[in-house]
């Protein structure tokens, strides 16, 4: 597996659908899932729609749907449009995770934007999950 954009959402942003994703104004969340998910970048559409409807992280300070990103920016860096943001730390977790799914909780249909693959299943035991993306979460090149 790999980290990918959700192509169906980006297509709907760009084509006649004109899906009104506004990353700075909308509530953007990051939901966390284990390795029971099998993502497909050409067909996956939304949070809570298969395959992103099972295997979600639970416990500790995590609320279903994941934390809301803060301090969001869209800037041009080295000839790329970069979306950067901060994710609040999730505390007190005892669970497993592999995927971080970014989705828009403001547009209709809870459309997904991207997912990150940690590369393997990660086990937390009463631990905090501290996530940073110093060079941004996604970029248009």
């Amino acid at each position, binding site marked *: 597996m*790999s*980290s990918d954009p959700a192509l169906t959402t980006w297509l709907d942003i760009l084509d006649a659908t004109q899906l009104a994703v506004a990353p700075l104004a909308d509530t953007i969340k990051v939901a966390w899932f284990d390795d029971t998910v099998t993502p497909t970048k050409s067909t996956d559409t939304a949070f809570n729609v298969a395959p992103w409807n099972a295997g979600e992280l639970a416990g500790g300070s995590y609320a279903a749907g994941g934390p809301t990103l803060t301090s969001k920016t869209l800037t041009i860096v080295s000839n790329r449009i970069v979306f950067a943001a901060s994710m609040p730390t999730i505390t007190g977790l005892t669970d497993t995770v592999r995927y971080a799914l970014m989705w828009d909780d403001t547009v209709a249909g809870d459309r997904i934007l991207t997912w*990150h693959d940690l*590369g393997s299943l990660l086990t937390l035991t009463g631990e*905090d*999950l*501290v*996530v940073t*993306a110093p060079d941004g979460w996604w970029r248009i090149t």
Partner: protein
Amino acid sequence: MREPLFDEHGKAKNREDLLSVGVIAGGKTRVTKLSESEHAVTERHVHPDGKSEVHVTLAPVDIKGER
């Protein structure tokens, strides 16, 4: 009832107590790499007070056309 951490002269009475409440650092944070993929590095940080955190550093996902 817990004993005071400092005596009347302000001197620490018990180093382990000070460590447990984070008043002093008992050494370096131990960092262990757990995994690395194209877009993520994960590490476990165990602090001197015993607190353990999993740190994930993400790289941006590229949204691009084929060239």
